[in-house]
């Protein structure tokens, strides 16, 4: 029964850690993928001054040619270009500040995931003039519906106020509330006409095939356009890297807490084992089993229990994360708004790298070893005379023993 408790504790510990690592990785992936798909892409090209001051005059000339050149680079999956300007969106009920993004629908759908996040209406098309996509939240705040008219107001290149009426053709929901409330999408040609920057744009967004080639492709593009600013998604949104490291750190902290709990669980249970076997241990000491063998007996027993438990925990963890990796964990019931507020999907898909399993095998072995040391120490400090009668009275405690050991060592060196 006692052995089963230790085995059970280790199984639950390993399973929890695998699940936790899976969840953490799933959340990181969800957040980053959402951000890349809907907001930042892998690489972006801007006019250097556009970053600090998002004025229309800081545009990239002949942006179509740049799009075509970048598209021909090996490893580039898709390229789109956009016009971006700060604007005021108004309905008959309300108005608010937003960022208007003018896109070329046929290119944008290859780079951005917004077209797949439509919850009403349809995505932009090249056929009709002055269409606009707004988020569900913006629609709610402006009190507009599909086919309602809204007015976008902004400054053109000559710093004159200009405006255009747009018809709501679709509503989207990316999963990131802050982002959703801050942007609207229109066709680039409509926006360019109003801004008077035809043939130009403010941003080139690039998706690549393999993330490991990010740096090399970025360097290649930077070389091609030395006058433009070429940045990867971590540079565009430094909080992504920060978030990634913070979530990873939180995961490590949780893992350490789990491991500590496991160590204390093992210590507690193995101490019970020693207590239950005081008579046996007393007898073994009496008949001549030396301290090293008794110490090793407790340590090996614990490690063997861990070796029995570890594969079960690993398999259970693998099965659980594999299942949820396919089906996802629906966090909707927990807090739909809360999760979206921070840019997560409702569904998290746990993902555990293979390395984690090997690391866990090593970590659990070390944990078992660590957890067995104190009970083993207590076992060898038993007094055989007392232990035979079932008394748990031991010799000096660890600190007293250490003190005496050091004192004797110092004395022996001194003399």
């Amino acid at each position: 029964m006692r052995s089963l408790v230790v085995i059970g504790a280790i199984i639950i510990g390993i399973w929890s850690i695998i699940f936790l690592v899976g969840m953490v990785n799933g959340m990181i992936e969800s957040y980053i993928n959402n951000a890349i798909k809907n907001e930042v892409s892998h690489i972006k090209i801007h006019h250097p001054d556009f970053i600090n001051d998002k004025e229309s005059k800081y545009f990239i000339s002949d942006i179509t040619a740049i799009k075509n050149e970048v598209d021909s680079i090996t490893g580039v999956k898709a390229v789109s270009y956009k016009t971006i300007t700060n604007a005021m969106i108004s309905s008959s009920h309300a108005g608010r500040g937003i960022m208007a993004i003018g896109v070329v629908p046929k290119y944008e759908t290859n780079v951005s995931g917004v077209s797949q996040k439509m919850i009403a209406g349809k995505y932009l098309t090249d056929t009709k003039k002055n269409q606009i996509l707004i988020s569900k939240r913006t629609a709610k705040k402006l009190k507009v519906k599909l086919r309602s008219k809204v007015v976008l107001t902004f400054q053109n290149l000559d710093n004159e106020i200009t405006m255009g009426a747009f018809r709501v053709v679709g509503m989207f929901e990316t999963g990131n509330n802050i982002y959703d409330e801050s942007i609207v999408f229109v066709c680039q040609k409509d926006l360019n006409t109003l801004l008077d920057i035809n043939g130009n744009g403010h941003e080139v967004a690039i998706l690549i095939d393999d993330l490991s080639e990010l740096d090399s492709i970025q360097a290649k593009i930077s070389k091609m356009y030395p006058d433009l600013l070429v940045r990867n998604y971590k540079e565009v949104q430094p909080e992504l890297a920060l978030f990634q490291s913070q979530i990873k750190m939180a995961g490590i902290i949780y893992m350490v807490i789990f491991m500590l709990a496991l160590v204390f669980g093992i210590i507690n249970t193995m101490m019970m084992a020693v207590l239950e076997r005081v008579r046996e241990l007393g007898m073994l000491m009496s008949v001549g089993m030396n301290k090293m063998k008794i110490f090793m007996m407790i340590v090996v027993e614990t490690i063997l229990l861990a070796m029995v438990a570890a594969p079960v925990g690993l398999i259970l963890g693998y099965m659980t994360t594999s299942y949820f990796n396919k089906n996802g964990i629906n966090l909707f019931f927990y807090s739909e708004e809360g999760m979206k507020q921070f840019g997560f999907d409702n569904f998290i898909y746990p993902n555990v790298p293979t390395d984690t399993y090997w690391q866990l095998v090593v970590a659990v072995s070390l944990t078992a070893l660590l957890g067995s040391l104190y009970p083993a120490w207590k076992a060898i400090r038993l007094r055989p005379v007392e232990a035979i009668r079932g008394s748990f009275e031991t010799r000096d405690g660890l600190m007293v023993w250490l003190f005496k050991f050091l004192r004797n060592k110092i004395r022996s060196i001194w003399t």
Partner: protein
Amino acid sequence: MDLIVTKGITKIYNPNKIPVHALQGIDLTIKKGEFTAIVGPSGSGKTTLLNIIGGLDRQTEGTVWIEGTDLTNLSDNKLIDFRKNKIGFVFQSYNLIPVFTAAENVGFIMLLQKRSKNEIDTRVLNLLKSVGIVEQMNKRPNQMSGGQQQRVAVARALASKPKFVLADEPTANLDSKSTTDLLDIMENLNKKEDMTFIFSTHDQRVIDRAHRVITIEDGKVVSDVNSSIN
């Protein structure tokens, strides 16, 4: 031949707090082949004396020699080796390992002595035969009666080929029949193999069978009667 010699054995518990004088200058000589009972009322010091002779406890003052070896000068590890090779123990509550069979309980001491498997198997069988429990050799302690368990304990005590066997109240938990059987076995081993047995007891049935009876009261030897028939 003097097997055990004690000189001025004193044992004081809690010397720095409330001292308890368990033994006060015990001088004893026990020869090979003796069948000795150490008797006395509870708290008289007989178990303490047995523990000191067996190297399980250390005296406050005095000296113990076993076959000429002074136990006082042995380190803890050497004392463990000494116990393993020279002394057999029989405990009041048997102290068998519950997950081992009778044969394994007897044989594991020889494993500690690094004997060969063949030697262990042969000796275990012979010992279990000699204590009349060979049919129970594959049973675990919880499948045996108290008397049977104590017989296994006697076989275990003899497994390491000790110089003598110390038995602390070996019959305290046994009924009359089991006590008689156990004493027959031990007396037989004493006669046939010249094995030295030293008991601590206040069981009259053991006292009646002992060849030498040492009485201890308040930590002192008050009588030492030798009725040896050897």
